[in-house]
């Protein structure tokens, strides 16, 4: 089971790194989302994987009796999901606002804060809105 999870996490991280290396900010954002989900799976895996053993205290018992699955990683993941949801939704709005204000999603062409010589400005590549229009 751990081996399968390791492969799943590895593939997810590889995919997210591929997306993060893109110049299109929306892909970068999807890369971050994929990465944070991969990290959540890491937490689940290192906490120990068990099947069908909820960490519930029985009707008569006072304390949790073994065997049970580790509840702490679940608490950690829940926290991480909530925090990640807030951050990522903010980032999504920020990227959309950036597209409205700056007129591009190409990170190489966002040079307002750090201006460069217009001659050195890279040519527009992969403008999603325009390619859709062309199609």
């Amino acid at each position, binding site marked *: 089971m751990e081996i399968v999870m390791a492969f799943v996490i590895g593939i997810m991280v590889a995919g997210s790194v591929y997306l993060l290396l893109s110049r299109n900010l929306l892909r970068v954002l999807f890369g971050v989302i994929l990465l944070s989900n991969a990290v959540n799976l890491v937490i689940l895996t290192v906490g120990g994987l068990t099947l069908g053993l909820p960490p519930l205290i029985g009707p008569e018992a006072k304390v949790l009796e073994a065997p049970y699955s580790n509840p702490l990683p679940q608490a950690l993941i829940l926290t991480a999901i909530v925090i990640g949801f807030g951050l990522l939704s903010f*980032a999504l709005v920020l990227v959309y606002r950036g597209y409205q204000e700056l007129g591009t999603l190409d990170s190489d062409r966002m040079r307002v804060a750090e201006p460069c010589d217009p001659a050195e400005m890279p040519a527009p590549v992969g403008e999603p809105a325009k390619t859709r229009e062309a199609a």
Partner: protein
Amino acid sequence: MSAWLVVSPILVPLATAALCALAWGRVPLQRIISLAGSVTLFVCGALLLAHVGANGITAAQMSDWPAPFGITLVADHLAAVMVLIAAVMAVAVAIYAFGDIAPERERFGFHPVFQTLMVGVCGSFITGDLFNLYVWFEVMLISSFMLLALGGTREQIDGAIKYAALNLIATASFLMAVALLYGLTGTLNMADLALRLREVEQTGVVTTVAVLFIIAFGMKAAVFPLFFWLPASYHTPAIPVQAIFAGLLTKVGVYALLRTFTLIFVGDTAWTHGLMLWIAGLTMLAGVLGSLAVTDLRRAFSWQVVAHIGYMIMGLALYTPLAIAGAVFYLVHDIVVKTNLFLGAGLARRLTGHDDLRSMGGLFKATPLLAVVMFVPLASLAGFPPLSGFWSKLVLLQASLEKEAYVIAAVSLIVGLLTMWLVGRIWAELFWKAHPVADPQGTAAIAPGTRFALVAPLVLLSAMTVAIGLFAEPVMQVAAAAATELMDPAPYIEAVLGKGEPPPTAVVGLEPAEVRP
């Protein structure tokens, strides 16, 4: 009682933020609440430092859950000093915000978000739990996103996108590192981790996780080669936001490195701390060269933030009591100076009407007194004696010579020299040179109330820099006490986990029972 004192650096700004949010439509009231909250935080920080000085390391168990199970908050000398100095910056910035922040930025919640940022910063300083540190980092991160984008100019959105993208990746790698560490040890309490990591046999895995932490905290601290988000974003938001970011945010990353790499990851110092020595030298060089390459005053100071992070990492990397004391001294000095510089740059823009050094000038003639006040942080940045920058650099240099690390000593001296060049250039361009268009107005042209709000924080922080320089010995004693605690983690572990044998492994074991139906 002492538990309340330890929690107060989180509770006070949290309550202030809540009160500010309740007074949503009434901006003048928000300003007063924000200032009052910052002053209260300062009092709490001072009391906490006095308490730690008298009683040693103080730990508080939240909800009375014993140490490795619940969340522990710990105040030692380092944490208390950081809370105190952060509170001083909050006071300075809250006063400055009376005079210089656009009304629409205030209406959209500058004050509550600013106080929430302080919650995250102070929480990071006093937490004793690694996952809790992650949560405080996130509180800090989401507030900094909001402060950075508040106002929504094109420049800000551009900077905020880069800041957000890189910090989200740093957050993910931090969480990954925390998860792997939990997998190795079954605990997230820092003191418990310090004990359990010694028993872990796979030292290679521990070192790998340590390097993941260097990447995560290094990205927050803006070290080479992970600093590119900082010069891209720090000069874009409102002046008070720039000042508090430059003063505190990167230093929280440095604090986290100082904490984890003296308490938890001390198994293979030759590799981890050796790596950090390289990072330190390259950070200094990259930062100072970047600051010399730009003509925008705020961007030059942003690059200087990067450069001086290198000195603190150098102190940590040398890993001797003197070097750690130097790093702590440098933290205190640098927080004051960087906040002061950004506030000063804001005032200079107001008076000369520009951010670019080529289009500024004539300030010495217009306001000689302000020039003197601003000379203090500039000179301290370059390390002129007897200001705070000189003593902190001297201690680090002495430590590096004792450790016979001559290369880093040479690099730190060269970077100091290049910083002096930058300071000379800023002095000549901003103060001595005549203004290219028209003579700038003096501070007398600003309305009296606003003038006081703008100048008072500069005077306060410059006076602090002079005071730290003239009375360096008491500051050095506190830094040395912090370094002693960091170099010998036994009292810290005892304060958190109690005396005697380490507690049994958490009930939730690392290896759950393998039961197959």
